[in-house]
């Protein structure tokens, strides 16, 4: 690390990370604001999370993410429909993920470096995985609740096998 770089090294994430986090956090809050406590927790999240990412502060980012996840849990406990729950949880995960990734990039490379491609691809991958998981999960839920227990049991077994496989790795 050279002299002037130390003087000017700015460990804050790029704009792309902040923008992606903010959008995802907003979606999460809108989807989870079913009750007053959930909305309040979500509000804390949606305020702290972008500020944390903007300043490169892991603490604020973590508090904000906790707010978003708490909002999702509170909304779920209050009986939010499964489809909104999936959207809220997915958006909360994407917001947390984009923020965490952005902060890591900022700390390693500094705001002067170009990093929007890495950030963009990472978030696209997370969104894609989230969408696939949500769709599969929702289909299983529909099948299970529409009174076809055999299919549900098979799927449950497949899930259990996958889970064991993952734990074994």
């Amino acid at each position, binding site marked *: *690390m*050279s*002299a*002037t*770089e*130390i*003087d000017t*090294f*700015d*460990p804050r994430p790029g704009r792309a990370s902040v923008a992606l986090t903010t959008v995802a956090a907003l979606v999460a809050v809108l989807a989870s604001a079913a009750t007053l406590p959930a909305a309040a927790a979500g509000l804390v999240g949606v305020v702290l999370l972008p500020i944390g990412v903007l300043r490169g502060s*892991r*603490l604020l980012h973590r508090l904000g993410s906790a707010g978003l*996840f708490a909002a*999702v*849990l509170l909304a*779920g*406990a209050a*009986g*939010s*429909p*499964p489809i*909104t*729950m*999936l959207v*809220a*949880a*997915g958006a909360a*995960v994407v917001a*947390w993920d984009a923020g*965490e*990734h952005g902060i*890591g*990039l900022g*700390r*390693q*490379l*500094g705001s*002067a*470096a*170009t*990093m929007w*491609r*890495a*950030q*963009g*691809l*990472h978030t696209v*991958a*997370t969104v894609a*995985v*989230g969408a696939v*998981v*949500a769709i599969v*999960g*929702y289909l299983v839920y529909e099948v299970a*609740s529409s009174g076809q227990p055999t299919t549900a049991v098979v799927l449950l077994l497949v*899930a259990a096998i*996958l*889970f064991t496989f*993952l734990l074994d790795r």
Partner: protein
Amino acid sequence: MSFGSVPTGTKVSESERDEDTATAFDIEPGTVEDRQTRRWYGVTVFALLALGLGVLTRQPGLLLTSAFGIAFAGYGQLTSPPPIELAVERSISDTDPDADDTVEVTVTVCNESDRLLPDLRLVDGVPAKMTVESGSPRHATALRSGGETTFSYSLRTRRGHHEFEPTTVLTRDASGATERLGTVETPDTVDCEPSLPSTAVDFPLRAQTTRHTGRFPADSGGPGVEFYATREYRTGDPLSRVDWKRTARTGELTTVQYRVERSVSVILIVDARAAAYTAPDPYAPTAVEAAIEAARHVYVSLTDEGHDVGITALSPTECWLAPGHGADHRVQARELLSTHPALSPSAPDEDTNIYAAVQRIKQRASSDAQVVLFSPLTDDLVADSAIRLDAHGHRATVVTPDSSAHDTTGHQLASVRRSLRLADLRKRAIPVVDWDGTESFERALAGSTGGLR
């Protein structure tokens, strides 16, 4: 060298910085390290919380959310770190620049593996003593197999031979759960050899003496330009030097003598011991740089006047350029003052045996050679060496770049001690040029020539 640790001076608290040690860019060249980032653990915790809460409240939405979270935890487990098979190519706008120049470095990175690199982070190995002027030597991107990425930055050059260090590479999988840290070596060098100053300064040498006390050959008559004296004609004197007018007037043959101009052998001694690498702040040029700059001026001035000038260093590494002048010698001097390892831009690790170094100078230099010592005078040893050389007939002049800082009591004390050394040298009739670096060397010389002659 650590790339990833957050530099001091930024607004990051200590506890937060510690967390980054797991993702620090700190690796030996040629090795590869695989790491788990454990970044999905938080989501697993969320999933388990949702599961518990879902069971308690019997809400299907929560159970579904739990499954969702666990799926993400699995996503983090499924992937493996992408390989580091990269070709790094640096294109440097000028590998032989002048000092204080700007060099544009363009780095092209090609993914030679057959896998997509979803998250590739690069830190180019900027030479330790160079400074990044604009742009960033750090870059993050996604790179498909066979794909290329380019980034560029500019460096401010400093004197010396600079080698690029290996590029540090960090690849992460798409989920970011695993990462691989490695290096890619691309040896490139930049040789910054500042040209010698074109204009000579008026550097005053001491009046020349030989070992025979009381005789000043420079103050004697003979062939020359300036009128010195006349004397009685002796057989063998050239006819052109006979003062014919006087002969016509008086009838006696008289020979005109001119002031002899002798070229003097001068050894420039640059203090390049670790102690001399001082600077008012950690990123300012060191006193050695200023000393070399001054030596460059003095070399040009003295060789222009026809003196034989040699160069040596007080350094753990041997460094000696025998006194001489002329175009060849000038090239050698320029090269030595730019890239000789003894005058490296960074301080040597070993200690310098200053007594042995001075002894060597005494052995090598002709007995009546003058010495010019370039030193920040940070300790008594070097001041003593000047005194000892002077006492041995090598009439000494000291040029001392002032690198002292005044911010703390300790620094102020060091500065006062340096002034005392200066005063001591001057008391012993050794001329001292004190150069504080803010003015030109020429002005510093002009300011102290009163005391020099």
